[in-house]
Structure formats: structure tokens, C-alpha cells
């Protein structure tokens, strides 16, 4: 039984590694400027974690195989180096790994969160509410009008609570149910939560950020590939959470301009 157990551990370890090595269910392809930093971090971590995983499982299996069912008088031997050696090994191996991942990992994080948006980044506001995302473009004046929570009215399609009669800046704001952006143009995304916690996740963009009711947060990113992607909510927000999504279209500049014009006409 011991030898069979050892073999089972090895088979399970190898079987677990195969889908990773063969990219059977791969990460969605990266369409962002900063994503490669995350992907590199991911690959390094996968290599280190993978080696640690396989090594630990294999050695566990080998020791189970070798040291079970020994005769009653077999001599008890000490692992070379004893506890001291293992403690030193853990500090050195894991410590370096940890420092490397931690320190090099700050680069990817800093490039996203500690770098301010470019001066010409295009501002778009996204509002998350049970159970839809709505988007607002500032229009020709480049300014977002103020939000009035008391004016929010879904049946009138006043999703943001705009007072387009009295607020000058709101008059040309463009509200849409889909997000569109031009390719290779930095986007400055202002995030507003209408009711409870939500999150903005586009795997291909390598972006995930929670909305926080009471806090207006922002992120910035640049898409590098034309296409149509899904924005999904990842923060449990109620019964419609699974279905809370919107489409993100990345267009050429020309196609985006046409799209925005069409949206403006629909207001």
C-alpha cells in the first residue's frame, strides 16, 4: 500500500502539471500595454511554484516508498544536515524566491498604480449598479457634469442622475450601455459605485479593480488590439451578479469617432 500511495502521489503531481504545461485552458490573450509585466511575473511564479510543487510531492513520495514497511529493528537515521540544514535551506530558497517575487513584482504593480495617467488620456466614467455597467463620455466640452443621486431614475434612463437642464457640463455628456475605446490610446477610467460593491474586470486588459461605494476611484490603461471583449463584475453584488456584464469594443480611432457620434445622436 505504501508504494502504491507513493506512485499515486507522483501520478497526481504529474497529471496536475500537464494542463499547465500544455496551456490547455490558457489565460486570455493580453491586449494591454502593461499586461506583459503581469504575464512575466505570472510565468516566473509558475516556474518557481511548479518546481517547488513537483519537488515536494516527489520527495514525499520517494520517502514514503523507501522508509515504510522496514523491519522492526531497522536503524533510525537522521536526514543529512538535520533540522538546522532544512531551516537554512528554507530561509535561503524560499527567502530568495520571496524577495525576488516581491521586489520584482512591485514593478508591475507600480506601473499600474504609481504612474499617473498621461495628460492626454481619454476620460471615461463607469458606473456600476445592480446589475449593469453604464458609461459616460464627457462630450465636446471635455467635462463631466455633476452627479445627483436623488435624480437617478432607471425607467427614464437617467442612470447617472444627471441634470441636463440646469448643469451646463452635463448637457453634452454621452451615456452608453457599452464601452468603446480607441486602440493605442490611454484611457483614464473613473469608477463610481451606485449602490453596493462591484468590480471591473477585463481579463484581456489585465485590469481588475473594485468599485467602492463612497469612494471615487480611477485606473488607467491602454488597449493594443482591436476587438470586442467582455467586462464582468467580480465583486458579489446580489442575485444578478453572474449576469452583470458589458461589452468593451476596441476600435480604430476612426471607427471610435463614428461610434461616439452615433451615441451622441442617441442621447
Amino acid at each position, binding site marked *: *500500500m*505504501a508504494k502504491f*500511495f507513493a506512485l499515486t*502521489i507522483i501520478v*497526481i503531481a504529474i497529471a496536475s502539471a500537464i494542463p499547465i504545461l500544455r496551456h490547455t*485552458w490558457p*489565460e486570455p490573450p493580453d491586449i494591454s500595454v502593461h499586461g506583459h509585466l*503581469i504575464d512575466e511575473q505570472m510565468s516566473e*511564479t509558475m516556474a*518557481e511554484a511548479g518546481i*517547488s510543487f513537483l519537488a*515536494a*510531492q516527489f520527495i*514525499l513520495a520517494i*520517502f514514503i516508498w523507501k*522508509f*515504510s*514497511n522496514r523491519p522492526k529493528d531497522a*536503524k*533510525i*537515521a537522521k*536526514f543529512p544536515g538535520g*533540522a*538546522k540544514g*532544512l531551516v537554512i535551506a*528554507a530561509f535561503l530558497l*524560499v*527567502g530568495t*524566491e*520571496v524577495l525576488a*517575487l516581491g521586489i520584482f*513584482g512591485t514593478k*508591475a*504593480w507600480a506601473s499600474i*498604480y504609481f504612474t499617473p495617467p498621461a495628460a492626454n488620456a481619454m476620460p471615461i466614467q463607469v458606473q456600476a449598479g*445592480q446589475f449593469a455597467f453604464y458609461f459616460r463620455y464627457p462630450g465636446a466640452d471635455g467635462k463631466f457634469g455633476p452627479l445627483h443621486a436623488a435624480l437617478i*431614475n432607471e425607467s427614464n434612463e437617467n442612470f447617472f*442622475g444627471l441634470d441636463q437642464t440646469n448643469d451646463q457640463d452635463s448637457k453634452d455628456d454621452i451615456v452608453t450601455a457599452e464601452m468603446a475605446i480607441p486602440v493605442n490610446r490611454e484611457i483614464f477610467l473613473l469608477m463610481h459605485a*451606485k449602490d*453596493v*460593491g462591484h*468590480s471591473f*474586470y477585463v*481579463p484581456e486588459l489585465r485590469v*481588475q479593480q473594485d468599485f467602492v*461605494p*463612497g*469612494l471615487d*476611484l480611477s485606473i488607467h490603461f491602454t488597449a493594443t488590439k482591436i476587438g470586442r471583449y*467582455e467586462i*464582468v463584475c*467580480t*465583486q*458579489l453584488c*446580489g*442575485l444578478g*451578479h*453572474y*449576469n452583470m*456584464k458589458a461589452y468593451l469594443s476596441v476600435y480604430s480611432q476612426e471607427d471610435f469617432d463614428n461610434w461616439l457620434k452615433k451615441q451622441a445622436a442617441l442621447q
Partner: protein
Amino acid sequence: MHDVSAHAAQHHAPPQGFIRKHVFSLDHKVIGKQYYALALVAVFVGMVLSWIMRLHLGWTNLAIPGLHLLSKNGAPGDIMTPEYYLQLMTMHGTIMVFFVLTTAPFAAFGNFFLPIQVGAEDMPFPRFNMMSFWVTFVAFLVLVSSFFVGDGPTLGGWTQYAPLNAVGSVGGPGEGLGVVLWAASIAIFCIGQLLGSLNFITTTLDLRVKGMSLMRLPLTAWAWFITSCMGLTAFAVLMPACILVILDHVAGTSFFVPSNLVINDQLQPHSGGSTLLWQHLFWFFGHPEVYIAIVPGMGIVSHILITNMRRPLLSHRVIIGCMAAIGILSYMVYGHHMFVSGMNPFSSLAFSFPTLVITIPATIIVLIWIGSLYGSRLRINTASLFALGFISMFVSGGVSGFFLAQPSIDIMLHATYFVVGHFHMVMAVAAIFGIFAATYFWFPKMTGRMMNETWGKVHFWLSFVGAYCIFMPFHYLGIAGNVRRYQAFVNEYLQPLIPVHKFITIAAIATGIAQFIFLYNLIHSRFWGKPAPDNPWEATSLEWSTPTPPPFDNFGGKLPVVYHDPYQYGVQSSTGDYVMQASSEQVVTEHEEK
């Protein structure tokens, strides 16, 4: 510390009558068994909930026979509504984390064996101890009652994030009374845990018998002691957090709700609250909680492996130091649950460093376990199989932590099935394997009968292979971007992953059915198992020095004296290759803790 009066403080007369003996018992052993029974009921409830969830995830429009009987509105025509899925999911998580993983390894086995392992007749506050169980039991009833009230249990997940947890029934089904019952149940649970921790800490520090220095305590005793210190501080924060949530519901406060929120076109009557405050309070408790769930298992695995390897671990003190280091570090890492929460991104980096560093003591413990196997005389039985299985599971679950500890990678993996795979393997399955190992190991002492080894091994094989089949694929789903807490997968990019979910569901149901083999073995052996000798495993610690099962005062009025450290194996004595802690026999030993 060892004088007679300290013992007299917890000396009580033999119990009389059925109620005192079996219901409102002051005996730590009965209380331990009561906790075990509660955890057993809870784990089967939690498991059945997971089956229903998994059936729905694999086959979303499946009519599950009888489901309409469980809930008034949750499953018309036996087809689960989206809200009911979330409600079942919330209850699954809450029941499992609190009433199984915190209860069985710590409260059940700890209550039964800690006093015996230190050489005491009972804990110093038997009435508080009795209260701790019944308070926990009431907490369970309050939680389960939410199934049967109004529009059902809360649907906000076991993490109950704000402001959904505080806005009331406008937030969705179960978000009114369901949340209040959840928070009340957990607040009551906290009280039970605090009473328990009080007993565990004082037992360990004050009731050790003559010769039982701290370094001579078995590793299980150290694990329970460290866990109870964590419990004291962690539950002390969760309880007021739950009270604040209840106040937001019933007293018009707004601890967790800011102003200007609009739900169903209605401006919500709250202002001044902080959404993130809940997350800080909850995770300050929540991260130590997961170590509360696993540290007793580490002690149990150490204890069982040593007995079955016939040698002590390479270092007793290093294991103690690492468990303590994990306990202390566990308070510094909680923000890794909040990397993309909207918290200051600099804080995310700050939390990621201790999160990566906590890998070091965990790795040392695993390396010492594996290194101690080298050159040992390993015995394979059901208990040692589950202990070894724990190591395999803990490694598998632990390495996925490398990914989640880094904020940049967490951008991709947060709130995906990668996280769900990680915590199920490293905490849930590993801890459950620890519970199984402890059961097969200590059942003979607790009941006077042996469990059936053949059925035990069948249970092990099905559980070990089954658990890997269920939870390893979760990691692949997460890498592919499969978001968690979805009741159905409607997004285009998720469609190719649905066959993986079907595979997982089948594995989950098969593995679940295998647990009935354990249940049958447990019940059958309790009444008809082979009679057990006092020391069936040829083990050394004090619990094996008592009669079987131990009498109400554990040692029959004659407290032992401790002459040896807890793991003198590989020696030559009159009993064989080991000498018991309470044996006055002097033998040649390699090393003795004093």
C-alpha cells in the same frame, strides 16, 4: 503552578444523572465529543449544500428533485433561482469555516485531549467550557434558522461585504433578516470561542502536571495553545464587527454605508459610513481564522506522524517556533484579501511582503515533516495515510499562495476560481484530512473500540484521489479567468470551461458519497468495533497512559508524573522502541527536553 490548589480548582465530583453526564456536562471529554458531533452534522450539511451547488453549476437548468421542499421561493419547479444559489453558497462557506474547520480540529479534539495531555483532571473553568459548547450550538441553530425565515438566508457570501451586508432587504433576497441572523449567529459563535480559548490557555499554562514543562508538551498541545491565543484576539474583533452590522440594520446607524447610495431608484437613508471598514475588520479576523483552522491540524499531523514513524521530528522546538511565527505573522497579512479593494495601493505592497514571508515558517514545517520521514520506520495505517495526505494537500494548496500573495498577479486571479481552489486545498481539505487522521488515531482512546482499518483505507483512497480531482481543476479555471460566485456561466469566454465544471461536479459527488463510508465506519465501530487496548499505537504521550476510555477525572484519581519528553521513540525500553512520558523507566535517549 503545580500546587494542589490549582488542581483542586478544577476538581469536580463524578457526574450524576443522564443530563449531567451526557447533556450539560462539565467533563471536557463529553464537551469534546459534543463539539465533534456538532461538526459532524455541520460537515454533512455543508457537503450536501456543495453538491446542490455543484449540480447547478454543471447543469444550470437542472431540476433537482425535492429542492422546492427546502425553500419556499428558492427553487420553483425544483430549478434553483440565482439568489438561492448564492444563499446556499453563503451557508456552505459559513457552516464549513465556523462549524467544521474551527470546531473539529480545535474545540472537539482540543477539548477532549488537551487536559489529558498536560496531565490535568479537567479544564480550570468547566462551567465556562460547558457554556462554550452550548453557545456554539445555539449559534448553529440561529444560523440554520435563516433557511426557514422570510426570504431565506443572506446571499452575500461568508465574507458578507459592505454595504450589501448593511443596506437591508433592498439589497436582495435574504439581505434583511437573513443578514441579521447571520451576524447574530457569528457574534454568538465568537462568545463560545472566547470562552473556549480562555480555558485552553489557562489549561496549558497553569494545569501542567509535575514534570510537564512547556517543552515537554506534545505538539498537539502547543498547536491548540497557539490557536487559542489567535482565537482570543481574532474573534474579539469579529464580534463587534457583527454587532455593528446588526446595528446598521435595526438601529438606523450607518457604520458601513456611505451616503448617496441609490437602490431601485430609492436614495438610501444612510450616511457617514465606510465600506472598506468592514473589510478591514472582517479580514483582521479572517486571516488569523484560516490559521486557526489549520494550525491544530499541523499539531495533529506532527503528533500522528511521529507515532507512526517511530521517531521524533528533526526538531521539536523549530516546529513550535514556526507555528508561533505563523500565528504572529497571520495578523500582518490580512490585506492580501484587499489588494484590488480600493485600499491604498501602497498598502497592498506592504501586505504582500509578510504574506510572502509567512511562506518561510510554513515551508520549514513541511520540510521538517518530510525530512523526518527519511530514515524512519514508517507505519502505514489509516491515520498515517491521512496525515501524509495532509502534507501533500497542504503543499499543493500552499504553492498557489505564491501567486495570490503578489498584488500584480492578484489583478488576474482575484475573485476567480484560482482563489477557491487555493483555500479549499490548503485549508479545507488539509484540515479535514487532519480531522480524519485524528479520528482514526484517537477513536480507540475516546470510545474503547478500534475503527475498521479496511474501510478506513477505502475512505482514504477515495477521498485523496477525489479531492485532487475536485480542486486541482479549480486552478486551471481561475487562470482562464473564471470568476467565482457565479450561479451560471453566461459569458462567452466562459463557455469552453463548462465541461471542466461538469467533471468537477461528478468528482465532488463521488467523493462525497465516499464520506458515508467514514460515517458508517464511525457509527458501526462505536458499537461493534474491536475492543481497543489502552495504547494501540504504542504511543508515548499522556493520553495513552489513561484507562480506555478515560474515566471522568482522566487518571482515576492518580495524577501521573512526567519523566520524559513527548516523543521518545527509537529507544530501547521494556515496552519496546518507545518510552511513555509517564514512565519512570530510565532509558538511553538521544535528546531529552527538560
